[in-house]
């Protein structure tokens, strides 16, 4: 049976090429592996080997021909004694089309359909409460999950014998031993990779970064290994793990130790990103993060570690991801924030109330998934929005929310959305400059007054 030899694609980007030279002529016997032609691609001149054996029946494209499309028949191979079919080379140059698939579902329509808002309480009414610091809440969350699931372990610099650089893992080495509370050398890229491998192996690592600034050493494993593997493996395996540690500015620790990574990680499909404010949220969301089958980035804050909040006294208490919290309801403006940004948002709302401006304050709590519905519902009510975060302005969470609100609730806006962010500079060390680099309550108040035209 006659076989068509097609113009090959010899580089990932090649669409056509020049048939530079034939090394076999009509009538020649060809064995598989023989070099039959030289083809010039956009990058190089390549030798073209025969795959099939037979006799060169007919050359369809003369040597020297330029712009030969990939998959064009260039010659016909026949068996001994066989005639070249009359229609040889008439078939269209078409790659075998893949079978049609159902169209991908379109992203959510841009209609401001009444958003579904879940503002159910995070714990049953009447639950007894206790006062706890964020630090204690975090430790309790990890310890409870480690008691519950032997596959959970904690790994990081100074988490064991030193009791945690910021004392988050205090007492955990004593309770769980060095098999499950593991001190590492200062080798972030290595141990983040090892933990990710352990997660592929079915364990549930909690990786503590002494601060998220040092996770930049490890970001390749966080994104390329942990976040993408579920997808790349077609759903066979992923990385059920938590990367956690303090994020953002502490106090006067300078440019290399004061960066907010919220927007960076929130950009990555495959990661979940949590950035809580209150101790109850730290606890409920950390427990949720450990149980989540995906890599979770858990962004803590050193300044909040020592802050006390009311935490429910419950044997088991989790908060679902993607559920924002309306911390203060109001009618005049929506202030959206998360993490330490809530400090400024809430303080501004208090002060604005004195001026007769009734602000609604939303704590996003998780940035991926993000509770768009709660934000949209609030903006539909107040018609104005101000976002507050500590990170840099370009490509910020506030930018993203502004775009989302513009797309989905344009007709409800009475003023442009304003983003309050850290300044677009590396963090300076000097006390006076650092104050100006950070977002402030005064700036939030100012922004609210602008959008409310006061």
């Amino acid at each position, binding site marked *: 049976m006659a076989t068509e030899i097609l113009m090959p694609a010899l580089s990932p980007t090649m669409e056509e090429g020049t048939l530079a030279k034939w090394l076999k002529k009509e009538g020649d016997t060809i064995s598989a592996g023989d070099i039959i032609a030289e083809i010039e691609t956009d990058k190089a001149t390549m030798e073209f080997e025969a795959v099939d054996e037979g006799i060169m029946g007919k050359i369809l494209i003369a040597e020297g021909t330029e712009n030969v499309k990939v998959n064009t028949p260039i010659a016909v191979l026949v068996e001994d004694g066989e005639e070249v079919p009359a229609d040889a080379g008439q078939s269209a140059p078409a790659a075998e089309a893949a079978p049609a698939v159902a169209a991908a579902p379109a992203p959510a329509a841009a209609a401001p359909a009444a958003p579904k808002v879940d503002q159910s309480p995070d714990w049953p009414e009447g639950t007894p409460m206790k006062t706890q610091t964020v630090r204690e809440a975090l430790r309790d969350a990890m310890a409870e999950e480690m008691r519950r699931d032997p596959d959970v372990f904690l790994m990081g610099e100074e988490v064991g014998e030193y009791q945690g650089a910021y004392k988050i893992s205090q007492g955990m080495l004593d309770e769980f031993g060095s098999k499950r509370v593991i001190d590492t050398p200062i080798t972030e890229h290595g141990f983040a990779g090892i933990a990710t491998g352990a997660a592929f192996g079915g364990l549930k690592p909690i990786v503590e970064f002494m601060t998220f600034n040092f996770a930049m050493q490890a970001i390749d494993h966080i994104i390329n290994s942990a976040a993408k593997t579920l997808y790349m493996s077609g759903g066979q395996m992923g990385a059920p793990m938590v990367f956690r540690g303090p994020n953002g500015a502490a*106090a*006067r620790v*300078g*440019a290399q130790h004061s960066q907010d990574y919220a927007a960076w990680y929130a950009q990555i499909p495959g990661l979940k990103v949590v950035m809580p404010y209150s101790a109850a949220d730290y606890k409920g969301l950390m427990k949720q993060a450990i149980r989540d089958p995906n890599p979770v980035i858990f962004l803590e804050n050193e300044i909040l570690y020592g802050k006390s909040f009311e935490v429910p006294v419950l044997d088991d208490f989790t908060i679902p991801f993607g559920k924002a919290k309306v911390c203060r309801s109001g009618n005049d403006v929506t202030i959206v924030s998360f993490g330490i940004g809530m400090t400024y948002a809430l303080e501004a709302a208090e002060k604005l109330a004195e001026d007769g401006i009734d602000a609604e304050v939303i704590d996003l709590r998780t940035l991926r998934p993000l509770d768009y519905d709660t934000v949209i519902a609030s903006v539909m009510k107040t018609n104005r929005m101000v976002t507050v975060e500590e990170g840099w302005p370009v490509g910020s969470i506030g930018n993203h929310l502004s775009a989302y609100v513009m797309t989905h609730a344009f007709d409800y806006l009475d003023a442009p959305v304003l983003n309050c962010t850290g300044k677009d500079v590396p963090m300076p060390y*000097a006390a006076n400059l650092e104050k100006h680099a950070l977002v402030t309550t005064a700036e939030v108040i100012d922004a609210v007054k602008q959008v409310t035209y006061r």
Partner: protein
Amino acid sequence: MAARKPAAQANVSKEELLSYYRDMLLIRRFEEKAGQLYGMGLIGGFCHLYIGQEAVVVGLEACTKEGDKRVTSYRDHGHMLACGMDANGVMAELTGREGGYSKGKGGSMHMFSKEKHFYGGHGIVGAQVPLGAGLAFSDKYRGNDNVTFAYFGDGAANQGQVYETYNMAELWDLPVIFVIENNQYAMGTSVARSTKSTSLYGRGEAYGIKGEEVDGMSVLAVKEAGERAVAHCRAGKGPYILEVKTYRYRGHSMSDPAKYRTREEVQKMREERDPIEQIRAMLLTGSHASEDDLKKIDKEIKDIVNESAEFAKTSPEPALDELWTDIYA
């Protein structure tokens, strides 16, 4: 190779001994003052003192010539003073004032001086190692015989980028001296708790890099080993590793409770191995200096340090528009 005993002790001149004494004492007193200012709230954030490690940088700086470069970690005050940077400018950077080396924008961990070829002051553990090799690359590229000293800690020695750098530095014969300041702890983690390969200089062998262990409490031993390393590098033979065994007396930073070692351990080191006391004793027993001579030096140093503190307190905070400068060249 075990630490060599300095052979040349007897031939060290009086001037040399006096200059080591002065330089080490300046660092010690400066750091004590910095600790005090931190306690008063005049210095903020992280502040890592060099007390105990003075002989390392003073011994190695004695091997340098104009054009040689240095780069280190956040524990950088000593390095800056030893390479001749002005105490006022360093202290004012610690207080975040306009008169500081980075106009107050860098802080304790991030200072630089182009004039003195001091390339920082880096806060990310291990980052200065490839940077140091890169500085050496620039000298080799230009064809001069300068060398670069890349200082890093025992903890940093476990970072992967160190080994990527070793490989390229030897491959390309870069004139860089890798100075491992092994003060035995990385924060609260002792060397033995972070590696089973505790001969840190020996790891260079896998890459073909020569190295040796040095008694870092003896400035003379450091100087002697430094000369060997410098000669090797200047001759175009590629990198060299000095693992300098030293000890930090204070906590990792000002906020370290230091429960990972005993008080006795620190006390013993101070009493038996102190680098400044060793030189002081040599000066006195060799009749190179009298108690009175040394008191005079002590007083000079105290004056320099007090003046730097005064300068650092009175130098104004940077102007607010400094926030927006130096982001792009």
